[in-house]
């Protein structure tokens, strides 16, 4: 038995096909979801992928957040459905208030594409079980609006509760508070991060490493063993 993992396509989504490929490589079944459908097709988990939904006009993720598909998604995420937001997906999750804080333009004001080193700070979420706590990984980062901000209380709470899931190592590529690269909600089912694990699942392609694959095997194991 395998798990069915949905990938939502918004207008302007870019990494939807790549994310479905990563899910397939991990051994799960990718299911394409469409932003205009108020229907999650009974998937076991959802990935909101990278891209420039609605051109990132207004604010990254701000317009996509009001898509019909977000209604059931928000409701079910609150009830425990595993949701992963990558890059633009992370931005959508903060806009939808499924994750606290917000995303702003990189502090250097440029788009940045690089192979980014991260430390796994929480290997217990639905999406990080196949990593070791403290493990260092490298996966591609590419965005314009990657600066994570939140008020001091929120950041303190995230730190105290172990909800910072990934931290940038070596360089903070965008000015994110506390070098935060990814966070989770209290229940650990909703995770958002700026770097792109789906671009690091095959040798040869991209950076040539497969450090991103455990995201997809983690969720598969969790769902199959559930």
């Amino acid at each position, binding site marked *: 038995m395998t798990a069915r993992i949905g990938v939502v396509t918004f*207008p*302007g989504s*870019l*990494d939807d*096909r*790549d994310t479905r*490929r*990563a899910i397939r490589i991990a051994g799960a079944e990718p299911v394409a979801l469409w932003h*205009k459908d108020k229907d999650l097709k009974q998937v076991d988990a959802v990935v909101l992928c*990278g*891209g*420039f939904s*609605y*051109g*990132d*006009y207004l604010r990254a993720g701000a317009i996509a957040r009001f898509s019909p598909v977000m209604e059931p998604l928000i409701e079910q995420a609150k009830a425990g459905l595993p949701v992963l937001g990558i890059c633009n997906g992370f931005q959508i999750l903060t806009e939808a208030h499924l994750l606290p804080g917000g995303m702003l333009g990189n502090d250097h004001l*440029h*788009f*940045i*594409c*690089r192979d980014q080193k991260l430390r796994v700070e929480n290997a217990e979420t639905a999406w990080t079980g196949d990593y070791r706590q403290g493990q260092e990984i490298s996966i*591609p980062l*590419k965005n*314009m609006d990657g600066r994570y901000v939140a008020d001091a209380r929120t950041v303190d709470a995230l730190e105290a509760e172990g909800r910072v899931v990934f931290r940038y190592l070596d360089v903070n590529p965008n000015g994110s508070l506390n070098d935060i690269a990814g966070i989770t909600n209290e229940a650990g089912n909703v995770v958002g991060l700026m770097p*792109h694990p*789906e*671009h690091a699942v*095959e040798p*040869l*392609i*991209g*950076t040539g490493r497969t450090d991103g694959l455990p995201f997809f095997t983690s969720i598969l194991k969790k769902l199959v063993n559930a």
Partner: protein
Amino acid sequence: MSRTPLDTVEHAAATPDVELPWAELGLKKDEYERVVEILGRRPTGAELAMYSVMWSEHCSYKSSKVHLRQFGEKAPESDALLVGIGENAGVVDVGQGYAVTFKVESHNHPSYVEPYQGAATGVGGIVRDIIAMGARPVAVVDPLRFGAADHPDTKRVLPGVVAGIGGYGNCLGLPNIGGEVVFDACYQGNPLVNAGAIGVMRHEDIHLAKASGAGNKVILYGARTGGDGIGGASILASETFDDAKPSKRPAVQVGDPFQEKLLIECTLEAFAEKLVVGIQDLGAAGLSCATSELASNGSGGMRVTLDDVPLRDSTLSPEEILMSESQERMCAVVEPAKVDRFLEICEKWDVIATVIGEVTDGDRLEIFWHGGKIVDVDPRTVAHDGPVYERPYARPDWQDALQADDANKLPRPASAAELKAQVLKLVGSPNQASKKWITSQYDHFVQGNTVLAQPEDSGMIRVDEESGLGVAIATDGNGRYAKLDPYTGAQLALAEAYRNVATTGAKPLAVSDCLNFGSPEDPAVMWQFAEAVRGLADGCLQLGTPVTGGNVSLYNQTGEAAIHPTPVVAVLGVIDDVARRTPVAFQEEGQLLYLLGDTREEFGGSAWSQVVHDHLGGLPPAVDLERERLLAEILISASRDGMIDSAHDLSDGGLVQAVVESALLGGKGARLVVPDGLDAFTFLFSESAGRAVVAVPRSEELRFTDMCGARGLPATRVGVVDGAAVEVQGEFALTLDELRETHENTIPALLA
């Protein structure tokens, strides 16, 4: 607002004496007379708008056509060519049922006026050419040239251009996998912003720009039409017909990459459902171009109702609508039974789509406005029968003096210390320095098929996930070489791009080019152009790589001063299995470095002569295309059979530049030994063509040298991958840290 009367065809026929502003629209007197002769009457305002824009240099290639013919006449036999010159972009067979389309275009002038938007819309335009062929765009490249690196205006232009290319390409989800950044004072007022794109499709999905089948509908879809880029038409509209015109028409076009992303998706979905008979993107000359080209390439005529075009600005006149260059629009020809489904797909993607006309069984292009017929022409006369100039050309009188000013006679470093200092200076010079500050603003990873991207010798994209089939592309050009000798310069550009593709293990298949020159009205420039085209056509014939399409950009000059003649050449290659690709970076200590090819004293136009002496003179390196072909075969065989682990072609900066790049990328140094028969200076800095440096695992050395020996390619052992420095035995050593510091800090220090 009353226009009395509408300038219909009947009205034009009845009022032969009305004066039209043909000169303001850029037509010459004889060209206007030719239009009158073709029509047998004076043109209507709308017809004049169409002829003037389609007969412009940009659309008709009137100055370059007589030379460009050579690309067809001298085309090599190639089984790979599926669609040649003349379509939106050429199409090449890459095997396993896949076809690849690619093309390079310029957006030079708009990028100088408004760097961000000019460059952004340049990317938008070339990508639409690729979609129009039926392909999914899979990558972009951006050969760029700017004025002096430390000139204040470069700081205005470059960051804007780079942000614009990134802003548009990143938002479309196209990995940027290669390009060039060159600084030279000659481009000060005329930066060159060239952009290339590649697309992939199955053979059966190739689409052409033609409208056939009477009754088929013409659908305009994408952005609404605004008053973009219609300077000429506004003159026409206001002066001749209507003085109540708003004068405000945008001077600059703003791109909407989000809209274009939707266009890509809905077009590909329509293709997949076989809904499209013919398709054309709207670029320069907008609807004038799309309707006349679709109609003239098809079997019948076309009737268009201009009132049905969705507008962004309701005050536009019909002439302006016909000439508008608003971005992110496409035109499709669809059978009546499939129109509903086509419109449904557009709606799914929130793309505005409107039936604006239909294919007729006549042979006229007829356009209506407010019930009156304002255009009635033979579309071929608009699209294909533009003027052709035989512009005079002559070798400039300064060419001999330039070539006599021999760079080989420049003072050379007198000591090891001086040699070392010059190496450091070269590696940190703006043209040789790392372009990471620029290229890290581009997404290299999106689509998940990028095998190689900058700073590799060529970009490489996986086409088939199962078989590992891939394509590679490299773009090159060297205006300094071309200035010294345009014929050889063009061949050197071709040779370098060809070599760059082969260095990564791919087999070069076909060529696209972007020819950037000064004013064709200057016989010296025209000579440069003629020589460059001749050189490129001869070179492509010899290498067996047909030119599949390209672009000409003329008038790149400020006053009397033209840019260096700058033919930029893109070579496309194919690799059976991307797992066999060869990277630039040194992989393992202990591997042996072999220099392939012959090294001669060749410093004309070299990076060394520029960086150390600020000199341009003499002759460029000699070209030997047979040698290039042999080198390519060796590099491809060696990659396929696992005999080499890294390779880097030698070009500007010579051997030392290449070795430093491989060392820095791999984080491993090299110990070099100057081979017998060469002095250290020539060994390090010469720019002789037809060379590469490869790293051979010791276990493969014999097999590799035997292969080179058997095929007659000189292969000289020049060192070993080792340590944390680049050392030239008996001369000097530079640590990787030291090299990295200079190589990587130059560009940020100038621009950040």
